[in-house]
Each structure stands twice: as C-alpha cells, then as structure tokens.
C-alpha cells in the first residue's frame, strides 16, 4: 500500500510554487521531504492533505483522495500542522479526544491518555492547552494525531501520519522521541510522510528521502543514495560535506562547511 502523487503542481497566483512532483511513499517506511526554505516542502504536504488547491492526483491506499469525504480520509490519515492556534481554552485531554473522535478508535476510552503518555504529556492532561509552551503544544498535537490513527494498520489497510516539521520547536531529546514515535508507527505497518529541516535526523530516521529545490524534485531515494555532497550542495546552494562515522558507515551525517574552512 502506498501514498502516491501524480504530477502535483501548486500555483500561488502566477508563481509556480511546486511542479512535477511524483512521490511514492510506502507503508512501513518513513518518507522524509527535505529542501531549503521556500523549496515547496510544506506546499507539497498541503497538496497531499488537500489543504491547498493543486493540479495532479493524490492516491492514498490505491484510491484517489479527490472523491473521498473528509471523514473517510480522516479514518485513513492524520495530519500534524506546523503550529496550531486553538480558539477556545480546551484542556489538553479534550484536544486529544478531538483527534480520537475523528479516527476509528472512537469507542476506546483509554486511547487519548495512552497517546498523551506516548508523547510524555500524560501529567498535563488537565492543563489548558493555551498555557503550554510551543514545544509542549506541539507534542500534544502529535498525541491528537496519534489518537486519530492509533492502530497503524486497521483491517489490513495501513494508516498514515502526515507531519509538517514535527520537531521544529522541540529540544533534542524530544526531537529523538518524536522521530522514534514516527519510526515505530512505520515499523508497525503504518506509513509516515514528514517534512524535515534537520538533515541529520533525516539520515537517522528516514527510509526514503525526497529532496526538493525550487519547487522541483531534485532527488529521491534512501538517505545513503540521496544525502550526498553534490545533491545537498546543489539543493541548498552552499557547500555541504557529508561524512560517515567509522562505526556507522550506513549513516551519513551532514556538516556545513564555511567557505573559508574549505578554502572554497
């Protein structure tokens, strides 16, 4: 089962923000979308989730999303936005329940608390959402998303987590925690598509990487194949050096090289 896009394009007025993107994300894998600011990462995710009007087709688990009702899609995939502004003073647990009611775990009363525990926020269940820090709020939103697709596979059909920069406002420990949650979800048979800024976290956790540059796909493959000096330097427009630690030759990590240091 897959999440596929066919020739996705998004225009903002006359400006083409995204064009010709054919993504193939498989269930059971974490697929990362990387690229510099303005390269169209979030725009692509917005097109996949149906938030942005777009050209081309999005196929989720073999069916075109265009003809499906919001609640049909909500049972198959959950979406984590970059930031959420909540209108009224809901408690944390109430926010997570909003996600649970959308999914197919509807009846299971303990799912919201389990989801909160999974992101390490169970002790905040009765706090008012607006009183949380940015990072805490983001983890609660992840719990809401998890509660929506609590079982990675339902009736043999994988479910999907679509994450827009899930670790942007988190400290390093929580960055690792969130990425582990995403990987565990994929290992259990679900699918994960995530927009990423941090190339090293991407190398650590992603199974496939799509590199976007200027609204166009530049490379797609495993981190080994894609995270190379040449591709990254071209994508980001600066000199980047990919190293491999001797003890983990399969895991590239990316170092920025200042011009003077490299003599460039």
């Amino acid at each position: 089962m897959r999440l596929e896009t066919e020739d996705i394009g998004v225009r903002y007025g006359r400006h083409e923000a995204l064009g010709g993107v054919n993504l193939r994300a498989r269930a059971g894998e974490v697929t990362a979308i990387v690229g510099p600011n303005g390269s169209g990462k979030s725009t692509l995710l917005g097109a996949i989730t149906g938030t942005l009007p777009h050209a081309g087709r999005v196929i989720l688990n073999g069916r075109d999303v265009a003809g499906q009702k919001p609640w049909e899609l909500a049972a198959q995939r959950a979406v984590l936005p970059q930031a959420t502004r909540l209108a009224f003073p809901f408690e944390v647990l109430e926010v997570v329940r909003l996600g649970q009611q959308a999914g197919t775990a509807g009846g299971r009363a303990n799912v919201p608390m389990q989801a909160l525990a999974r992101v390490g926020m169970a002790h905040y269940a009765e706090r008012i959402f607006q009183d949380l820090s940015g990072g805490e709020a983001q983890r609660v939103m992840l719990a809401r998303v998890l509660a929506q697709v609590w079982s990675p596979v339902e009736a043999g059909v994988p479910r999907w987590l679509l994450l827009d920069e899930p670790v942007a406002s988190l400290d390093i420990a929580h960055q690792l925690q969130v990425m582990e949650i995403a990987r565990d979800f994929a290992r259990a048979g679900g699918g994960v598509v995530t927009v990423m800024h941090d190339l090293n976290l991407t190398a650590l956790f992603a199974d496939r990487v799509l590199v976007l540059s200027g609204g166009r796909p530049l490379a797609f493959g495993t981190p080994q194949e894609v995270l190379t000096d040449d591709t990254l330097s071209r994508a980001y427009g600066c000199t980047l050096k990919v190293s491999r630690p001797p003890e983990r030759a399969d895991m590239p990590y990316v170092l920025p090289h200042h011009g003077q240091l490299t003599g460039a």
Partner: protein
Amino acid sequence: MAALTEISSRPRDRHARARALHWALAGVLALCCAVSLQIGAAEVTLTALLGKWLAGEPLTMMERVVLFDIRLPRLAMGVMVGGALAVSGAAMQGLFRNPLADPGIVGVGAGAGLGAILAIVLGTLLPVWVTDIAGNHLVPLAAFFGGWGSTLLLYRVSTRGGRTSVATMLLAGIALGALAGALSGILVYMADDQQLRDLTFWGLGSLAGASWAKVLAAAPLVVLSVGAALVLGRGLNGLALGEATAAHIGIDVQRTKLVAILAVAGATGAAVAVSGGIGFIGIVVPHLLRLASGPDHRMLLPNAALLGASLLILADVIARVIIAPAELPIGIVTAVLGAPVFLWILLRRRGLVDL
C-alpha cells in the same frame, strides 16, 4: 445561579460536569418560569392559582386572562428569545473562532433589524399573495434574511483562508451596524403613524408586546435554527483547531459553516423580529458556561439555550417589577447586567483583541 458557583473549582472531567450542569440548568429554567408566572403587576400569583385549582375552585375571568393571555405568552416568548440569542451567540463565536463575536455586537442584529423594519414599513407594498402566504411570519422571515445577509457579508470581509481577523470583524461590524441603522432611519421617515408606533415599541427591545400570535410567528424559525445549531457541536469543536485541521479530522467544513451561518441568522432574526434588540445575552451566557464547564460545543450549545432562556426570563421579571406599575424595556436590563461582564471579559483576556 447557585448551580454556576458550585462548580467554579476545576472539575476533573469537564464533560461530565457539563452534563450535570445541563440538568441543573433545566431545573433553574423551571424555577425561573415559575417565578415569572408568579410575579406581575396584577394581584395574581401562581401559588394562589394552584391552590384554587387543587381545591377544585374555578378561576375568575381576570385570573384566566392574566395567566393564559398575558403571562404565559410572555414567558414562552422569553424562553424562545433568550434561548435563541444565547445559542446564536455561542454558534457565532464558534464560527468566527472568537469569544467576542456576538450577533448584537458585530452588526448581525442590526441587519436583522433592518430586515424587520423593511417588512413592517414596506410590507404593505408586497403582492397580496406573498403577505397571505407569509402572514405573521413575514417580519421574522425578513429579519432572518437581514441577519443572513449581514452574517455572510461579515464573514466574507473578515475571514481569509479560514482565519478570522478579530480587528476586521469588529470594525466591519461597526460599519455594518451603522449602515443598517442609517437605512432603518430612512425607513422610519417613510413610516405612517401606526407603523411608527410599531417601530418605536419594537426598537426598545421588550417582551411587553408578547402574544400567542407573535410566539407562533417566531416559533418555527427559532425551533429550526436552534435545532440546527445544536447538531453543530462536533463541527464547531473541529473549527476551534482551525479550518484546515478541522477538515483533517473529518469535519465537512463548508457544510458546518453554512449551517452555522443559517442558524445564527435564523435565531437572531426570529429573536429580533419579536423582541427588538436585546443585547449581551449572546456573549455573556456562552462566556459564563465556558468558565463553568469548558468550551466543548456539544454541551455548550444546549446549555446556552437553557441558561439564556433563564437569564432572559429573570431580566424580564426585573424589568417588570423594578419600576412597577410601569416597566423598563428589557434591553436596558440586559445591557446594565451584560455590558460590565463584557468589559470584564476584555480586561481578563486583552489578548483577544490585540490588533
């Protein structure tokens, strides 16, 4: 109001508390109804009448008239108007994602009023078959269309990409209210003496003109609108997360917005048509309920109907007795009670209107 103070401490599960509050508020409403029937200018009390009824004595003509033709229709109208105003306030706040959005404040009430005045003044110019079909419903229906038009306009102006600008909403509301007021003023100049009397009476905001005919004229619109609003709970909860996220958790956003706008316009229109401009119920009631049992619209909307009806009936009792045998327009009572609460909301949460 004892029910509200009891639960001011943070409950463990607010949803369960909101359910409990629901039954408490139903009791409060029953009590307010009894008080409203008991008290009035005439020396007729509910307790005395009940005593007579239990003893098997017949009621006098005066007692029948006071109970069935004066107090009961007035009570029925108070319940309808109070419930409709509070529910339309709660629904509008959910739609605009802001606790300050109230039909009375942002010009929807004025738009509905313009519709009602149009119907009163120009209704005689309509073809006979239209007035025949519409009958007593003409003024409420016109108020509904006025409210609908102004809600749509306000939403178009103040909302871009699913996000409402509070500043734009409030300022557009001022403009809308001024425009509706000016157009209404022109119509007042065109009115004849009888119409002028109707308008003056109506414009003060009062339940004093209550009659079974008015109750029946407004009832269908109130029942439809409040009924529609009551099923919006899940949709408005979703909208609290933003339009995009609401869609992602399975809410049909466009349909939710459409139903919310129609319900707000219908409830506001019906209330304005029969009682004129009664302010602040729509903002104070949902705010108190959010403090007491949280913002979950699935309980907020039905509880708002109960508390709104209770508060309006109480305000009406105050309006009737405070300068008896004369009576105050109820709009004055709700403004005196409600405006300070509105200011208090602003003081507590100034961030709401940071422009």
